[in-house]
């Protein structure tokens, strides 16, 4: 089959993918006080990446994002477990979380909680799992 010219798909993808990325990061950060969190944020980010894979194909994407998503899974888990173990250092029970108020340059007074780090672990793990599943299944077709 001759390759079709999918310029409309590619152009819109560049635009939509960035909006998706932005929205997923918003969801990830909003999790504490509004619907959202690491899980849905991670799914949304992987949706953006999958969209880019669909528009540009396997080889082009591996040049743009030269990472192995397989390693995202243990990395995310390590961050999540790490925040749990962090409480050992301060002689608190496992998985204790803490928070504080900080003055950040643009945002002003902000509440920062260590639960965000745990969520970051979830976020990375979800991206890793979703992308590994999709890409390993897609890989078989690519080889034919």
């Amino acid at each position, binding site marked *: 089959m001759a390759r079709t010219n999918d310029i409309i798909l590619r152009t819109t993808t560049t635009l939509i993918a960035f909006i998706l990325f932005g929205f997923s990061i918003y969801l990830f950060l909003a999790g504490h006080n509004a619907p959202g969190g690491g899980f849905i944020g991670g799914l949304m980010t992987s949706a953006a990446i999958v969209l880019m894979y669909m528009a540009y194909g396997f080889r082009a994407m591996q040049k743009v994002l030269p990472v192995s998503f397989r*390693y995202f899974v243990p990395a995310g888990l390590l961050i999540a*477990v790490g925040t749990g173990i962090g409480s050992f250092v301060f002689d608190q*029970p496992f998985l*204790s979380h803490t928070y504080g108020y900080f003055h950040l340059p643009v945002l002003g007074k902000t509440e920062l909680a260590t639960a965000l780090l745990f969520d970051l672990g979830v976020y990375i793990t979800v991206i890793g799992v979703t992308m590994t599943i999709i890409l390993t299944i897609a890989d078989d077709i690519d080889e034919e």
Partner: protein
Amino acid sequence: MSNLAALPIILPLLAGIVLAFFHKRIKLVRIVSQVTAVINLIVVAVIFWKVHTGGSIILETGDWTAPYGIILVADILSITLVLTTNIVAVACVFYAPRTLSESQESFYFYSFFFLLITGVSGAFITGDLFNLFVFFEVLLMASYGLIVLGNGKVQLRESIKYVLINLFSSMLFVTTISFLYSVVGTVNMAQIAQRVHEVDQKGILTTIALLLFFVFATKAAVFPLYYWLPRPYSVPNPVVSALFGALLTKVGVYSILRVFTLIFVKDISATHTLFIYLAALTMIFGVVGALSTNNIKLIIAYNIIPAVGFMLMGIGIFTKVSISGTIYYLIHDMVIKGVLFMLVGAIAYAAGTSDLRKMGGLIHHYPVQGWFFFIASLVLAGIPPFSGFIGKLLLLQGALAEEQIMIVGAALVSSLLILLSMIRIFIQGFWGEEKELAKPERKKTAAKMAWPIGLLLSISVLLGVGAEWFYPSVESIADYLMNPQIYIDSVLKE
């Protein structure tokens, strides 16, 4: 420090995660996993000692007080089982490199292995019913990964059955928890127990108890829910079979033991009487299965089922003696099933087949394995100096004291038949004329397989010979289980 209660879960979890980063470098992975398994065993032994001398360690995770947060309870029962789990794990981790191919090892075997240990330890230690479900899933997910590892055609077929039945029972587990939550309004086991005791376990609660039993009985392979077990357990790699046979069904038995000594104890006539009948049927049907086949791996897999029957029998009779029999048998069975699966793995490797009719005369080339197998058979069947005997003796004493003659008969007959099924392997496999199939050139690897087995077997023998040392602590566990108020008070701090 109460954080000790979380260490048996965190250490294998961390090991599993870290090993996934460099899964291709097999030599490094082996060393790291062997070292962590041994360290983990030492840590658990220390915690065991602390619990033994100073009482339960209770960890309120995230610093939330008992009924509101998840609690981890390292009491004398759970930490004993975690210790046994880790002993089996150490033997398996040293046995694994000899039986797995390099490609299997590099495809995350050790990560799955440690996640399985995490799930099993977590299920033993948690004090929260929903968290128990989560740890069940952790160990099941890891077991799905392990059962298909190597991707043979048979493995694929059996893993589909295995995944389907476990998915179904997990769904039922969640449904049952939601029923229970809607009735008592909590998932903390101590608080559930308190509330169930307050209303004397009326109507609906007994129904929920039976539903929960159905879930755990599926995981533990009790009659009539055992049909899924034998084949999926006999097809994967021997080390995976050993892990499954030693740990997975025992988590189901532990859950039955915990739930029906802590929570649902007010209406014994409905639930516990049923257990006795099911236990008798489990023993008979399991052992009939073991006699029906000539595949040595399948014989051992079928032998898991009567053992579950024995443990259930103790819970059903529900006296102090019979509960201590159950605990003794549980610990003994975890160790000996690990030994047996590893042994038949080594035997099948040496003979090049797992069909009993094609074997013969293996003792000429493999005397060590032969005598190991002979001792292991005697341990399993319950011949006096060994550990199977003590557990069965306690169970039978408990049954006779309660005048449950039917179950005594079933237990004795099935013990005899277990011995028959095991000795059949010994006689046909090790005695007689040498057959062409016995491959002496595999001697070296088989010899390397022998020493982790010997280590585990010696622990099993010690459990029987040194019964005088172990019995007092088993009895104190039974005492503790017969008084659920101690657990409730220690968790809710009243």
